[in-house]
């Protein structure tokens, strides 16, 4: 009789150990997703910090292009005050668009284009721009591996048991149709 007891005991212990293991793995996955989301915010903040400097530098050479500066500043404020993912994404797209036209204007001022400070800011901004894209990519990759781990058997049972801990995470998608249809860049 005691053999049955031992077997049941071993099975229960193994079960508990595997539940702990799977739970911790899911927690790790979830934290990676949260961290990835935070990474996007870090890069967005860097972009907000760079914009005033850029505007000041360009103003020194092209003071009368006030419309462009206004657009950039307005888009930046929208981004800082944005509520929710959708609004945020919209504001970010506005910033990207406004910056594009700012750089297009700068093309007309050879002195500005030769300015070391301007070149540095331009490089920094395009760097931040690609970092934002990479941060979003990493976020989506993290969500994908979180989902995969969550949906696999038997982890799906544990995820179901703790459904308030292992909530669904949204993929980051670019909503604006214009950005989807962006033209091919030749190189």
């Amino acid at each position, binding site marked *: 009789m005691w053999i049955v007891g031992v077997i049941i005991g071993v099975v229960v212990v193994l079960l508990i150990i595997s539940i702990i293991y799977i739970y911790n793995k899911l927690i790790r996955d979830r934290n*990676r997703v949260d961290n*990835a989301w935070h*990474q996007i915010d870090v*890069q967005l903040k860097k972009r907000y910090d760079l914009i005033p400097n850029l505007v000041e530098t360009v103003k020194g050479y092209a003071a009368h292009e006030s419309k462009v500066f206004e657009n950039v500043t307005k888009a930046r404020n929208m981004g800082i005050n944005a509520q929710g993912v959708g609004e945020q994404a919209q504001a970010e797209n506005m910033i*990207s668009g406004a910056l*594009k036209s700012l750089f297009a204007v700068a093309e007309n001022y050879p002195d500005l284009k030769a300015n070391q400070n301007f070149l*540095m800011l331009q*490089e*920094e*901004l*395009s*760097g931040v*721009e*690609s*970092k*934002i*894209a*990479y*941060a*979003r*990519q*990493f976020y*989506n*990759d*993290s969500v*994908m*591996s979180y989902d*995969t781990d969550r949906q696999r058997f038997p982890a799906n049972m544990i995820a179901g048991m703790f459904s308030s801990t292992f909530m669904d995470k949204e993929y980051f998608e*670019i909503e604006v149709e214009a*950005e*989807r249809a*962006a033209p091919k*860049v030749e*190189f």
Partner: protein
Amino acid sequence: MATTTFYEEISKNKWKSALLVSVFIALIVGLGFIVGYLLGSWEWAIIGLIIATVIATIMAFLSYYNSDKIAMATAGARQVTREEYPYYVNTVEGLSIAAGLPPPRTYIIDTPAMNAFATGRDPEHSAVAVTSGLLEQCNRLELEGVLAHEMSHIKNYDIRLMCMVVVLVGMVVIFAEVMLRMFIFGGGRGRRDSGMGGEAGGWVALVMIILGLLFLILSPLIAQLLQLSISRKREYLADANSAMLTRYPEGLASALEKLTVKAKPFNRASKATAHLFIVQPFRKEAKQKASGKSSMWDTHPPIDKRVERLRAMSGLEGMYNQAQMEARLSGESP
């Protein structure tokens, strides 16, 4: 799943690193024992054993903590800051975000040759180096491809394995060579006075001498082969992971082609560090491409095969997030 393979590769590589160190320590200790025996008697063998163990342990620790600095120093690389090379540093930082790793330190090697490598003991203590030739001749997408390849080496812990190989293989080669010379020129003197007389003792001694010599001659060869077999497979894997990171296999493919066409030998790479680089620094890649053959002594697979595999990946539908690609492309720097 891309991420799953990453984690499998990482634990595999950690095991390999540990195994590698154990094998090398055993090799060195064995060498010490045999040399000690050949030099004199069992007492000498014990002394040799102790000395070899101490040396092996110290070297293993040194290689673990300093291999990145050693590799950078032998390659003649200097560390650069964001202020000096914003374009390069930004690209590295962007890719480290994509890979979910802390950004590695950035180094430059001043030479017109085109090459790159990564080193370090883990992602927290990692570094990448590119030649100034590569920076000048590659556009942003190609540079991203190359750096993403290096980032994959970092993420997979290839860098730890490779760096340990550099130091440990170097050590075995030097050790065996020194011992061989000592044996040929000065060895064997003590044996006449050793306490092992008689028929049986003579046979044992003879077998030990033959085994010892064999071991001494073969060990550098074994070490070299081990080094080669480790690195070739890793290159294909890092290429594939690079494509996953940039979502643009064509970038690395066209960079590799540039490296082939404009191949210049890079002389600062020594035999010990050759396998760290993205393309083989010595052998003319063009020649290799023409013959289409790879030899047992190549540290890297032929470039045309690598390009072929990358181009095959470009056909994969749904691998790109087109909008995100465009966002990165629009940041194309002059």
